[in-house]
């Protein structure tokens, strides 16, 4: 009982949110904000694995997100809707409730495979040169999507709303919200279990001293491979959800700007702090919504905030610490992190 307190707490909160949405006590705008918070948590904590825990500088996270978004959307459109692109629906739309998470996972797997494009060069290069590779991968993905005319090219791809509607027609529940909450929880749990496992400590060892880690029998190549693939795979799942929240995606949504936005969340929260990433994703999303009246000046103010943060608290909100390190009483909730 004690062991699963945090999990139960999360399930209770999720249940409450789903109930509120179902009872229509919170309006569509707040629902969207909650969904974006979930997606941003997934994005920032998955990038934190590479940029924070492994100490690399990956600035092409939006590229992997794009892969996931496109693969998931195409699969869903192909399976459940009748369109001029794929012809009749492959399955009955009522199956979408069961198969939607499967398509998300396939999208994530494809993104993880694309992650190999970064992971394999990372065996030989580090630091600045690897940063360029991630950047190039982001451009390559965006440019490749722009050049495939059958999926819309630069015009974008749409119609995912039908899949979302098909799900709630079958079983009248806010399915998209549920899946976002489930996958957000799953992401955080997977990453938390991974980095606090004996095996996952190898990632931190690679950051601190690669050569020493290699001598101490950490298989650095495998560690990098796993970290990059896990990170990009989770980003792919987040991308799939992102596509279904918006109902429309185009390659322009997955530029360096989007990658920068995710990086801002990681560094705001603190490198190598999962709870920091979660907190900063919530903070950032809410801040963006509050600053919406400022329009363009929003994008002046947010970088300025980050510069000031870098000057006075360069390690981010949390630094390398987790929430239980600051408030020891919380340790009851997260018993797996034994020091």
């Amino acid at each position, binding site marked *: 009982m004690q062991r699963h307190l945090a999990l139960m707490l999360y399930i209770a909160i999720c249940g409450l949110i789903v109930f509120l949405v179902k009872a229509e006590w919170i309006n569509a705008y707040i629902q969207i904000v909650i969904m974006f918070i979930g997606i941003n948590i997934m994005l920032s904590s998955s990038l934190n694995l590479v940029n924070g825990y492994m100490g690399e500088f990956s600035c092409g996270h939006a590229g992997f997100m794009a892969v996931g978004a496109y693969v998931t959307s195409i699969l869903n459109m192909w399976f459940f809707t009748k369109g001029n692109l794929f012809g009749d629906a492959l399955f009955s739309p009522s199956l979408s409730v069961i198969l939607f998470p499967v398509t998300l996972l396939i999208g994530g797997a494809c993104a993880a495979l694309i992650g190999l494009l970064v992971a394999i060069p990372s065996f030989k290069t580090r630091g600045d*040169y690897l940063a*360029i590779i991630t950047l190039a991968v982001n451009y390559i993905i965006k*440019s490749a999507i722009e050049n495939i005319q059958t999926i819309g090219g630069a015009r974008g791809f749409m119609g995912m709303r039908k899949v979302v509607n098909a799900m709630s027609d079958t079983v009248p529940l806010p399915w998209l919200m549920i899946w976002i909450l489930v996958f957000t929880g799953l992401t955080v749990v997977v990453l938390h279990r991974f980095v606090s496992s004996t095996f996952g400590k190898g990632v931190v060892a690679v950051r601190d001293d690669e050569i020493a880690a290699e001598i101490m029998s950490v298989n650095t190549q495998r560690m990098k491979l796993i970290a990059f693939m896990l990170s990009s795979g989770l980003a792919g799942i987040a991308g799939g959800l992102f596509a279904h929240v918006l109902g429309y995606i185009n390659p322009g949504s997955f530029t360096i700007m989007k990658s920068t936005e995710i990086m801002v969340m990681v560094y705001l929260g603190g490198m190598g702090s999962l709870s920091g990433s979660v907190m900063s994703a919530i903070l950032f999303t809410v801040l963006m919504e509050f600053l919406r009246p400022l329009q363009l000046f929003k*994008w*002046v103010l947010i970088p300025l905030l980050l510069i000031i943060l870098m*000057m006075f608290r360069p390690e981010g909100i949390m630094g390398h610490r987790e929430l239980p390190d600051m408030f020891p009483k919380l340790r009851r909730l997260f018993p797996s992190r034994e020091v």
Partner: protein
Amino acid sequence: MDIQSFFQNLINAMQWGSFYALIALGYTLVYGVLLLINFAHGDIFMVGAYIGFFVATFLLGSYAFHLPMILSPNVVFVLTLLITMILTAGVGVTLERVAYRPLRRRGAGRLYIVITALMAGLILENGNLALLGASRRAFPDLIEKVVYTIGGVTFTNVKIIVILAALGVFFLLETIVRKTKIGMAMRAISYDRVAVPLMGIPIDTVIVFTFILGSSMAALAGVLFVSAYPVLEPYMGAMIGWKAFIAAVVGGIGEIRGAFIGGFVLGFIEIFVAAVFPSTFRDLIAFGILLLFLSIKPTGIFGVARAQKI
């Protein structure tokens, strides 16, 4: 591709390569001295182009204030170049003073400075967009375009000026870095950051000088760019800046020769890809080649792998 269009593309590639090279210089100079990727540099290029626009329109008398005499467009062009280079160098130095130096003084990690640079670039872009609006501006024609045709290959005098300027800057910078005292100090700082201040070399002065050089070259590129393609918009620096950065890395970041060779290589790849394939494949193939190249030779053309101490 026949020989005629080959030479036509060659000249276009030389021009694009010159732009990339001029901007890549700024990245490489700052990296050479500070080991800092100055991600705001592409936006310094944009600021340079805008400053050039305002200086040029001011000198032409487009505002309420008129100069006592009417200057000929060629004089205006030269004056615009000089004033823009000075003002943009000021912007670069201000950026260094306000954003990077406090962090350096505190001994913050390199990563934090890189993030600050990225954010400073965003501020320049979006600040410009918010203050001046999203409308595009047209740069006035300062140089009268003359079109030459030799053996079916046409080129304008602007292209010649751009290519000559890039070559001139290359020799100037090589001389400064290799032959002068301050160039020696720049190389020394990149060699050993700790020992150099102990030898009585004013490290801050050298860094400011580096930023002056890099920013004024970006301004030069900016004014030349809008002379060739007379459209100004706030995001013009983003794409070309990233690409110039890639050029600097391909050449081996920290090496002036590398920035030039890398710039021209990228220019050639882009133009010839666009000539053979549909032009939408340009980025895809250019970045694909880059990825392949960096996987094989991670340090770039002129870069030397530093031995890692254990």
